[in-house]
């Protein structure tokens, strides 16, 4: 096994920590995150370790429950987006008649700035959790559909596929047994990058007031805090701003470190591998 950088293990540990917090949220949270329990905007006390927000709700409990809703959105978006990337990429790479149509759609989605489109659609259909997951999942597949298609086209002309075809194998058999396995190298990178995209997008949208329905989330906590025009003149502002900010940054950095350890990250010697380049593209367009 290849030796992985220290940051990869730190990122993995952080991710594992966030996942456990998400699973155990109801047990770990000291209070009901929605119940106004104490004086509003109070500094940390023994009972409320991170203080309370403007409604007197416990910030620590909100942070813990926010982990859960963030990860639910992130994992669902990753599942949808990955499935679509592979379906479209395999179809475009193997079925010539579909190639023009599918790649045209891919190009259109890649060319559009995603935030204004997401804002419009979510405002029209309502920002519930399901809608948020669907919109992010349906918009984030194009980059890797291109990667998968490129790998499939490379594999299609390879001797082993030709040999299989000359033995009389069907298209379905070739796709499932030969082309699909050839693309699986790109899968870990896709999973990590899309998860990062989903966390990034969910936090940004919630900060703009399009949070996942009624769920408590980190971006939504910041949105609430910044709604107050006098935020920074209140002594309690660090407790309103810093915990969710640090949580979002930590989760995203964890995905960066894990992604870097996968081999496609910024630490590769020469950014010439298929995986490295495609990964880079997604990071750079800050989203997809």
């Amino acid at each position, binding site marked *: 096994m290849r030796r992985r950088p220290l*940051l990869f293990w730190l990122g993995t540990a952080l991710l594992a920590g966030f996942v456990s917090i998400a699973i155990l949220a109801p047990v770990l949270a000291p209070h009901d995150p929605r119940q106004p329990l104490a004086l509003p905007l109070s500094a940390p006390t023994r009972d409320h370790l991170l203080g309370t927000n403007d409604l007197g709700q416990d910030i620590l409990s909100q942070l813990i429950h926010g982990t859960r809703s963030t990860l639910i959105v992130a994992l669902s978006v990753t599942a949808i987006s990955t499935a679509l990337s592979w379906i479209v990429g395999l179809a475009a790479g193997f079925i010539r008649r579909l190639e023009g149509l599918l790649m045209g759609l891919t*190009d*259109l989605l890649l*060319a*559009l*700035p*995603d*935030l*204004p*489109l997401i*804002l*419009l*659609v979510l*405002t*029209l*259909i*309502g920002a519930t959790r399901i809608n948020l997951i669907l919109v992010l999942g349906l918009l984030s597949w194009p980059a890797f559909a291109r990667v998968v298609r490129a790998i499939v086209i490379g594999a299609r002309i390879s001797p082993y596929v030709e040999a299989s075809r000359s033995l009389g194998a069907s298209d379905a058999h070739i796709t499932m047994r030969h082309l699909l396995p050839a693309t699986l190298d790109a899968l870990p990178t896709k999973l990590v990058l899309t998860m*990062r995209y989903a966390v*990034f997008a969910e*936090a*940004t949208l919630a*900060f*703009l*007031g*399009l949070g996942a329905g009624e769920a408590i989330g980190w971006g939504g906590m*910041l949105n609430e805090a*910044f709604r107050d*025009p006098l935020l*920074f003149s209140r002594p309690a*502002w660090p407790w309103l*701003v810093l915990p969710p*900010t640090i949580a*979002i*940054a930590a989760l*995203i*950095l964890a*995905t*960066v470190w894990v992604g*870097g350890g996968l081999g496609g*990250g*910024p*630490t590769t*010697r*020469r*950014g*010439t591998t298929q995986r490295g*380049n495609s990964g*880079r593209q997604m*990071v*750079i*367009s*800050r*989203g997809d």
Partner: protein
Amino acid sequence: MLRDFLWLCGRYLALALSVVLVNFFLPRLLPGDPLDFSSGDGLDAAVPLTASARAELEAYYHLDDPILSQLWSYLGDLVTGDLGFSISRSAPVGDLILDRLPWTMSLLLVSLLLSAAIGTALGMVAGWRPGKRRDRVLMSASGMLAAIPEFLIAIGLLLGGAVGLAWFPLFGGETVFTDWGGGPSSFVRRAFDIAWHLTLPAATLALAGVAAFALVTRDVTAGLQHEPWLVAARAKGLDERQIAVRHALPNMAPPLVTFFGLRLGGVLSGALVVERVFSIPGLGQLGFQAIGARDYPVLQALFLLSSLGVLLVAFLVELSYPRLDPGRRSDR
């Protein structure tokens, strides 16, 4: 040559037309009726519509007509520059956008230029000797910075520069309720005031962009290191700095300019969010308030204009491509 040009124009016209069609069909095909939602039938209507306002909206969208004639009048409105009527502000959307465009555009321009210049320089420094310590440190820092959402960078700078050090204002695009006096000096003072207010937001977007440009430039630079012409220049004993600026940089122009064009969409999205953190009265602020008020015409216009703007820049970039590439330039 001419065929290439026509092919390029055709492709971008098709893309632009699909954007317009998406914008037309989205509200009509998605579930839910914007007018019912905002007219007060539901409990959660953000802005109850008066009967006359509703009539005006229905007339604007020609909602009773068959869909093809709706599309026709929509295209006609677009051609004459009519972008619709804002529900929450009772004003033409076009005017609202024109008011706020200068704020967002100046943020975009300043931060794009800054991040392109600094990011390219950093990327070249890192990629010149791939795999060395300097490369690894710069690239892992850029990788982290590029992944952090813009609004978090904005909050960080706000806490440092405006709350902690109090060097910059907490919010707003300029000092309001101020008499700048008359004469040419008042203009200068007002310009300085605006620049002072825009420093932190522009720095936020520039930071995010520097990381992105550095990552791309680094890969392009690292890929050049085994090019024969670079080895030859080195063998001649040229100064490394001279090789970088005189030989490598022109050869890197095509991919970097392409990336500059691609980046616009990302910076625009970032600007929309950053404006909210700093309360800059630009398009992002307009969009943010439109979300709260469910003001669809405003959001539709923002989507349409930003998409068309990004497509236009991408088109110009592709048009300039043959002129930029030293190899292809000498072929002619």
